[in-house]
C-alpha cells in the first residue's frame, strides 16, 4: 500500500448493486506468465470483493488461441462472461454482429471519457458512439535497449539515438559483438520494423500510412530512409541466431550484443538479471529519435449473455477493472502503465519514468491494430519478416511491395 502516492478515496465500486448475489463470471485471458498472472490476481481479488466470483479461464498463446475459443463458445451458445481481446479493428466484427455487450451506461456513469488517457484508448473501444470494451493498461514497444558493457568493451560511448547506434556497429563488430540482437520469430521482426518506421519517419507519417492508407506517402523518400535503416538493422543483426526474444535480451544483458529493439516487457529480464537501468543498461524510447510510445495495450470485452444477473456482474467487473486501486495494483505487477491519469506510481524505475513522462506529454500514437484490419496487417508484417530474413531482397523492392500493400489495405 505504501506504493501509492495518491489514491482517490472516492471508490468507484457500484456499492448498491453489489453483494446481493454472488454471480460467477468466467473470464478468459492469455496472461499466464508469472508477472502477468500476479496482475490478473489483482483483478480477481477486486472483483471477488464485490461479492461476485471470478472464474479464471487462462489460456496461453495470445489472440491466435483465444479467437477460436471465443468464436466457438459464442457460436456454441455458451460464451464466457468476459474475455481479453485486442481492441480496435480486430473486434469490430463481433461488435457489429451484436455479440458484445454495450457498456455505454457504465462508461457514462463513471465518466470514462474524462479519466482514461490517452483518449484514443477509449476511442478504440467505441463504435458508433457506444463503448464496448474496457482498456486496462498501456504497453509500449518503442524501446532500444543498450548494453553499456558492450559499448565499453568496444571503446565507443553509449549511443543516444539510432544513428549513433548504427554508426557504432562496425566498432562493436570489431570487438566481436553482435551489434543488434534479434530473435528469429516473425513478430519480433515486425515489431522492430514498426518501431523503426515510427521513430525515423515520425508519428504523423506513421498514422497517415497505417490509418489513412496513404500510399503516396509510403512511396516517399521519408519512408525510403526507413527501409534503408531496416536494411542496416538487417546486416547488424545478421549474426544473431537466437529464437526467443528473451534469448536476444540475454545477449544484451551479457554484453555479447550491443542492443535490442523490444517492448517494455524486456525490462523484466534486466531486472531478473540484477541489472540497473542507467548503470548496466540504457533505454532509448522511440530509438532516441522520436520519443513517442505506441498506446497498445489490452482490453476486455463482455459477450452478451441473456441473464440479468450476469449482466449486472459484467458491469461491476468493468467498473472494477478501471477503479484507481485496481489500476495501480494491476499495472505495477504487469509492468505496464495505467490508463488513468489520476493515479500515480512511485516505485517505477528510470525507464518506466521515461515512459510515463512521454505519456504525460501526450506523445502517443495508436497501435497498428487500432488503425488497420488484421488481414492487411498480417500481409504487411509478412513483408517485413521476409525482408528481414532475405538478404537478397533490396530495400527498394521491399518499399515497392509495401506501397502496393498499403494501397490495397483496408
Amino acid at each position: 500500500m505504501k506504493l501509492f502516492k495518491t489514491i482517490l478515496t472516492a471508490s468507484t465500486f457500484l456499492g448498491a448493486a453489489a453483494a446481493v448475489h454472488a454471480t460467477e463470471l468466467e473470464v478468459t485471458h492469455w496472461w499466464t506468465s508469472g508477472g502477468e498472472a500476479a496482475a490478473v490476481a489483482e483483478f480477481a481479488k477486486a472483483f471477488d470483493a464485490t461479492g461476485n466470483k471470478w472464474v479464471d479461464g487462462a489460456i496461453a498463446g495470445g489472440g491466435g488461441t483465444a479467437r477460436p475459443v471465443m468464436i466457438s463458445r459464442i457460436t456454441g451458445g455458451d460464451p464466457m462472461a468476459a474475455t481479453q481481446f485486442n481492441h480496435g479493428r480486430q473486434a469490430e466484427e463481433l461488435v457489429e454482429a451484436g455479440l458484445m455487450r454495450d457498456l455505454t451506461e457504465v462508461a457514462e456513469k463513471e465518466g470514462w471519457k474524462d479519466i482514461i488517457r490517452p483518449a484514443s484508448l477509449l476511442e478504440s473501444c467505441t463504435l458508433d458512439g457506444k463503448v464496448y470494451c474496457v482498456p486496462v493498461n498501456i504497453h509500449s514497444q518503442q524501446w532500444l535497449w543498450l548494453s553499456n558493457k558492450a559499448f565499453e568493451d568496444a571503446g565507443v560511448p553509449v549511443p543516444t539515438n539510432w544513428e549513433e547506434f548504427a554508426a557504432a556497429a562496425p566498432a562493436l563488430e570489431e570487438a566481436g559483438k553482435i551489434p543488434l540482437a534479434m530473435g528469429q520469430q516473425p513478430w519480433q521482426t515486425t515489431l522492430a520494423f514498426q518501431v523503426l518506421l515510427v521513430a525515423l519517419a515520425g508519428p504523423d507519417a506513421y498514422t497517415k500510412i497505417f490509418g489513412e492508407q496513404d500510399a503516396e506517402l509510403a512511396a516517399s523518400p521519408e519512408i525510403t530512409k526507413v527501409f534503408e535503416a531496416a536494411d542496416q538493422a538487417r546486416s547488424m543483426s545478421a549474426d544473431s541466431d537466437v529464437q526467443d526474444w528473451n534469448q536476444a535480451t540475454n545477449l544484451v544483458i551479457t554484453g555479447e550484443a550491443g542492443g535490442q529493439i523490444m517492448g517494455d516487457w524486456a525490462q523484466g529480464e534486466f531486472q531478473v538479471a540484477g541489472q540497473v537501468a542507467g548503470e548496466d543498461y540504457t533505454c532509448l524510447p522511440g530509438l532516441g529519435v522520436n520519443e513517442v510510445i505506441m498506446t497498445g495495450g489490452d482490453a476486455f470485452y463482455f459477450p452478451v449473455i441473456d441473464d440479468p444477473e450476469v449482466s449486472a456482474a459484467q458491469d461491476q467487473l468493468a467498473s472494477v477493472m478501471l477503479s484507481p486501486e485496481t489500476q495501480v495494483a494491476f499495472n505495477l505487477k504487469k509492468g505496464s502503465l495505467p490508463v488513468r491519469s489520476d493515479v500515480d506510481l512511485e516505485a517505477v524505475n528510470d525507464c518506466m519514468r521515461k515512459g510515463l513522462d512521454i505519456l504525460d506529454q501526450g506523445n502517443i500514437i495508436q497501435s497498428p491494430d487500432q488503425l488497420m484490419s488484421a488481414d492487411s496487417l498480417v500481409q504487411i508484417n509478412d513483408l517485413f519478416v521476409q525482408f528481414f530474413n532475405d538478404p537478397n531482397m533490396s530495400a527498394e523492392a521491399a518499399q515497392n511491395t509495401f506501397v502496393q500493400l498499403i494501397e490495397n489495405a483496408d
Partner: protein
Amino acid sequence: MSASRRPNQLFRNLTAKIAAIPMILTASVVFVGGTAWTAIYSFTDSGLLPRGEFVGLKQYDRLWASNKWLISIENLFIYGVCTLVLSLVIGFVLAALLDQRIRFENTFRTIFLYPFALSFIVTGLVWQWLLNPQFGIQHVVRSMGWESFTFDPLYNPEIVIYGILIAGVWQGTGLVMCLMLAGLRGIDEDIWKAARIDGIPMWKTYLFIVIPMMRPVFITALVIIATGIVRVYDLVVAQTGGGPGIASEVPAKYVYDAMFLSQNLGQGFAASTMMLLAVIIVIVPWAYLEYGGKKRHV
C-alpha cells in the same frame, strides 16, 4: 469372403450395417457436411465469424497470388517426400531389427517410441536448442576442435525445412516402427521356417516375401504418415514460427494463420479447400483401385 455371395446375406449384412452406423454418420454428417460447409464459406469474405457476402473466387485468386502460399506448398512437398521415405525405411528397419528376438526389446521399443508421447511444442523447442549454432550440436563439434563445422539448418532459409524434418522424423518414426512390428508379428512363423529351409537369405525373405505380405500394414503406415505431413503445423510453429522469414511456412499453418491471426476465415477455408482438393485428386483414384474393385488379398 464377400458376404454378398452368401445365401443369408441380407440378415447378416444388417448386423454389419447396424454396427457401421457410427462410421456412416461420421462420414456423411461430419466429414461431408463439414467439408461442404467449409467449401461454401470459402466463397465468402467471412472475417472473424462465418458469415459474409459471396465474393466468388476472390479468395482463391488471392491465395494463388500469395508468395507465402506458394512457399508453403513447396515446403510441404519437400518435407512430405522426405518424411514419407525416411519414416517408412527407418520404421521398417527398426521393426525388423527388433524382431530378431533381441534382448531388451521392450527397452529399445520404448526408446524409439517415446518421442511420440511428447507434445510438439516441446519437441520443437528441444530441437531448436539442439540445432542452435550457439549452444547446440554445432557448438559441441566446434569445441571438439573442428572449427569450420557448420550445422545451422534452422537459421538458413535454404535448408530450414530439413531442420524441421529432423525433428519430425525423430517424433514420428516410433509409431511407424510399432505398426511394422505389429505387422511382422502377424506373419506366420511357418513362412520364416520355410524360407530358412529353402536357404533364402534373410534380406531376400524380407524384401520379396514379408514386405509384400505386409502390404496392408504399409498402406496404413503410409496414410498415417501422409496425414501427419499434410497437417504438420505445431512442429513448425514451435521450431521456427515459419521463419527465417517465411522460409518454413506450411499449408496447415497458412490455414491457421488466415483463420485466427488474419481473422480472414474465407481465406483460410479457401486454402483448406485447396488442400482437400489435392488430397481427393490423389486419394480417390487410389481408393477406387484399392477398394473399389473386388477383394484383392490372398
